Every structure is written in C-alpha cells, then in structure tokens.
C-alpha cells in the first residue's frame, strides 16, 4: 500500500505486477506503448539499454518453463540487468524449505526484481508480501499470467490498431488457464467483446459472470471473431477426465480451416504455446497466414522489457 502511495505520480504506480486485476486501463495502455518502444529496441543490432544497469533480477521458476523464463531473461539483459535463473529442481525447495523461507533467503541477497512462476494460485502474492523488491508474476497456478495477457494485447493492437470493440474468442481449457483469466480481465478492461468457447467440463463455475459470452460450440463461438486465442490442453486432461479423447476434442474443439472459416476474413490466430498440433489446433492453421504465434513470442520479450523498466523506475535509488 505504501509502495502504491509512493509511486502515485508514476505512470505505473505499483511496486509489483501480480496480476492484470491490479491495473487500470490507462496503465495497461501505457505499458503497451512502452512495449512498442521495446519492440524497436529489440529489432536493432545493438539491443542493449542501460536502464537496469546494476540491478539484480532473479527468475525464480517453481514450474518448468522455456519461453517465459528465457523471455524474462532476455528482457532483463537487454535492459542491462544482472539476471540469475533459479531452477527449482536445484534449489532447497526440494529439500523441504517452505516458500516463505525461500523468499526470505532470496531477499537477503538484495535482488531488485524477482520474477516468479509457481504452480499454486496465490503463491506469488504470498511471496511478494515477504520480500523487499519488486515481484513480477510469471504465472501462478490457474490464477494469472499478466505478461502473457499484455503480450497478447500488444500483438492484437499492432494488427488491428485497437482492442476496444473487437470480438475475441478464447477457446479451450478455460478452467485451468491463467492465460484465460488474465486475458478476460485485460480485454474487458480495454473494451473488447470476450467470448469463451469450450466444453462445459473445461469451463470454471460462474464463467457467465466473468464478463464473457459462453459458447460450447466452436462454429457459434468463432462467428465473426476478430481474434481467436487457442489454449493448450494438457495431456492428463484429454483421456477421459475432462474430455473423452484427443480425437473427439479435435473434432469438436480443435481449430481447423472449417471452423475458422466462420470468423472474419482478417481473423488473428493466437496461441500462448507450447501448442499441440492435431489436438487444439491444426498444423496448417498454426503455420498459416493468419497465425501470429511466432510474433507473440517476440512481443513477449518487448512486454517484459516494458514492465521491468516500469518497475525499475519505482525502485529506490540510494
């Protein structure tokens, strides 16, 4: 709370980025603007900026991740920070240390920025209360993944010029997806029309009150959509627990040319990765002209540079 007060006049008046739910629409837009600049920096031969020079960034990943962790690592390095990756398999957590003790230990090393991914919803919030530095949520269980929602928004905005009044369909395992939750909040905050499309077994209870239109049928849900966001279906959920089989899921919920044909001609196809070709998305669609999946990865680095820079601006200077 005090941190928020201190940074009242900053364009990003928060000490952490724990979720999209903590952000005002104008703060989101400011971050996207900042990320646009970071895209330019990342496309230069010399990608190095010095705004995080002397700062220490620790990436603390309790859950395996390739692209998110390397994206945060690159973002930090391009801003001049010293970046350390802490893989959890090598850490003392495996020896029984509690999350709070891990936080206290890390805090004693005086990091400036802590990027955390954890398999439990709320774990990053708990950790943020126990450390003195700024914390970025890189995904906490099925709760939030704010940088993913920001990079998705940046990708859409660069192609459509706006977010407001676009129809965005989020398809797949909504129930277990932090990407879906962050995107629902962000897209609603910026005035998009949000739809979710999934079998009811993959929808969280109360979904109709989350500010979305709910569809169980892909053709209905994708009709006239400006953007389609596919979500990954984890293997352990495809064999009878939530959906009967891969082939049935692909038949009714896999994004193929036929289902996509009811969307707008200039529809954007997105996927946070890693994707399962032939499960939630057809290989030809994933590689097709409407697919922005690779571009999302590029935007990810830019968005993470933007948020790290915004947080660093609020760090104490002496």
């Amino acid at each position, binding site marked *: 709370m005090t941190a928020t007060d201190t940074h009242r006049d900053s364009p990003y008046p928060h000490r952490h980025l724990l979720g999209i739910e903590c952000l005002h629409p104008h703060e989101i837009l400011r971050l996207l603007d900042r990320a646009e600049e970071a895209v330019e920096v990342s496309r230069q031969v010399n990608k190095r900026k010095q705004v995080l020079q002397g700062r220490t960034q620790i990436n603390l990943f309790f859950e395996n991740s390739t692209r998110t962790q390397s994206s945060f690592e690159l973002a930090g390095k391009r801003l001049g920070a010293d970046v350390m990756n802490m893989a959890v398999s090598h850490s003392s957590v495996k020896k029984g240390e509690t999350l709070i003790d891990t936080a206290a230990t890390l805090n004693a090393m005086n990091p400036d920025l802590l990027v955390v991914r954890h398999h439990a919803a709320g774990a990053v919030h708990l950790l943020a209360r126990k450390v003195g530095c700024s914390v970025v949520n890189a995904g906490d269980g099925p709760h939030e993944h704010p940088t993913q929602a920001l990079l998705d928004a940046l990708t859409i905005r660069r192609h459509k010029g706006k977010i407001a009044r676009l129809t965005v369909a989020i398809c797949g395992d909504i129930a277990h997806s932090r990407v879906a939750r962050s995107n629902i909040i962000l897209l609603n905050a910026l005035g998009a029309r949000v739809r979710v499309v999934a*079998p*009811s*077994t993959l929808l969280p209870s109360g979904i109709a009150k989350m500010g979305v239109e709910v569809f*169980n049928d892909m053709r209905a849900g994708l009709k006239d959509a400006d953007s389609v966001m596919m979500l990954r279906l984890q293997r352990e959920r495809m*064999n*009878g*627990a*939530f*959906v*009967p*089989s891969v*082939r*049935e899921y692909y*038949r*009714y919920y896999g994004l193929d040319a036929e289902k996509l044909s009811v969307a707008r001609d200039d529809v954007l196809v997105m996927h946070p990765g890693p994707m399962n070709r032939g499960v939630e998305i057809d290989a030809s669609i994933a590689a097709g002209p409407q697919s922005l999946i690779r571009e999302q990865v590029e935007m990810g680095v830019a968005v993470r540079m933007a948020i790290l820079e915004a947080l660093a601006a609020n760090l104490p200077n002496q």
Partner: protein
Amino acid sequence: MALDTPRPLVLSNARVIDPARALDAPGSIIIADGTILAAGPEAANQGAPYGAEIVDCKGAIACPGLVDMCVSVGEPGAEHRETLASASQAAAAGGVTTICTMPDTDPVIDDPALVDFILRRARDTAIVNVHPLAALTKGLNGMEMAEIGLLQEAGAVAFTNGHKSVENAQVMRRMMTYARDFDALVIHHTEDPDLAGGVMNAGLNASWKGLSGVPREAEIIMLERDLRLVGMSRGKYHANLISTSDSADVVRTGKKRGLDITAGISINHLTHNENDIGAYRTFFKMSPPLRDEDDLEAMIAAIAD
C-alpha cells in the same frame, strides 16, 4: 403381421389402445398399403376393404409397438446364447417393436465403430427397430468418459454405464456436464455397489432365508446423489430402474425442482414382490431386487403419475 403385403388387413374384435389419443376401447384396425386407415370403435363399423384379410383378435390388445429401453443382448460376444436376430424375434413376439440395446457386451460398446457394427447387424438380421445405447465410460470402468460426441454421431441414442453405477461423484458430474453439451441423455443404474452386496431385498424376509440383502437405501442414496448432480449440470437424466416408494418420491421432488429427469420401472416390479421368491426361486433374483408390497403399489402409483 405382413404390413407390406398388397392385401388389406382388418384386425377385428380387438381391444384398441392408443395412448396418443387416450383411447382404450373395443374396436377394429383397418390397414392397407402399409398404412393404418382407421383404428378404434369407429373402424368397427366401416366394414372391410375389398379383398381384405380379416383376423379375429378375440379381444386381444392391439396397440402401438412397445419400446424396451433396456435390452441386454448377447451380440457381440455371446452369440452362442443370443444374437440381435433372436433377441429381436423375442421382442416382436412380445409386442416390442423397438429395442435399445445395452452397451455391456463383449466388447463394450464404447467406440463409434462398435455402434456402427450394432446398427449394421440390426439392419441385416433384426426384425424390430434397434437403437444402440453406448457406454458412458470407457470399458464401463466408471472413471474415463466415453466419446459422447462421436458415439452419438455414429448413432447411439443415449449413454449408460450398463448395470454398473458410476461410483465416483466427480466423474458422474463431469460426464453429465459433458453430455449436456451434446444434448445427450444419460441413463444410470442407481445402486450403490457397496451397500448393494446382497441377492434380494434386505429385511425380515431375507434374514429368515439366510440371504444377504440389498437395502432400499442403496438405490435411494445413489438416486438422490445423481439428482443433485443433474441440478449442477442441468443435463438430461433417466434413472434406469427404480423399485422403492422413496425413489418415486425423490423423482417427483426432482421434477418439481425443474430437473429434466425420468425414471424406469421394470414390469417385474409392477407385478411381483419379494414374497414371490418363495422357496429360493432364483429366477426372481434381479437388480434392483423385488421389494415389498408397499413398494409395488408405490411403483404402480408412480406409473400412473
């Protein structure tokens, strides 16, 4: 009867029952070119078409073909005992013109190709309409949901776990939720397998006989659980066979709450009670077991509802 022969047919002196018209009266039925021209008391006064074959029914009941929603057939897997052909002949002999076949065959009907197999075999060998029911869970294991969408597209008319209840409430909840998306009917055998360890209705009668009993609660508890899950999922549900007065009340209450539910009662539970078991007449061992006379009367009242 040979409906497709060119010769007209008159069924005279029949008790004509037609639920669609709330008709139950003595009368005739006139059939020509495979079409019923008239049926009921008025048909008795119309005389017979030229050249008609006239059959004196001697007061027997003539009614629309019956539908049996729960038929266990030996095919596939036990063709040495029964085939779709022989089962369909037995059905026709009893006035049943449509049967729904249970999926607890060998192999279990849990794959679209097997639904297709039943439909082809029925087309080629059966003399009544055959509609396959498909498995609710893979191999009827009660844990992994079957491919409701693909099975339905192949021609399955409803989904059931056969004579095994789905014990796991979470599995049952997800099954009904998923089936709802496809507007698929779930038919469930409501019997808690742990409580239902016996061979006849639990009570004094079973105790004197020294037989293990199936308490009424085995059925009631599972039925009440299911209807709570129907309330969560808002799907279509049919309790395969109910046998107790409390079950009938549970279903009535559920319908009052607006649930899309129905229940089945077997002819056995409308005509017999546990006393008919007498001296260990084992052909009266059934699931659910025959209950007492009060339950029998409650079942008749439930049908009348």
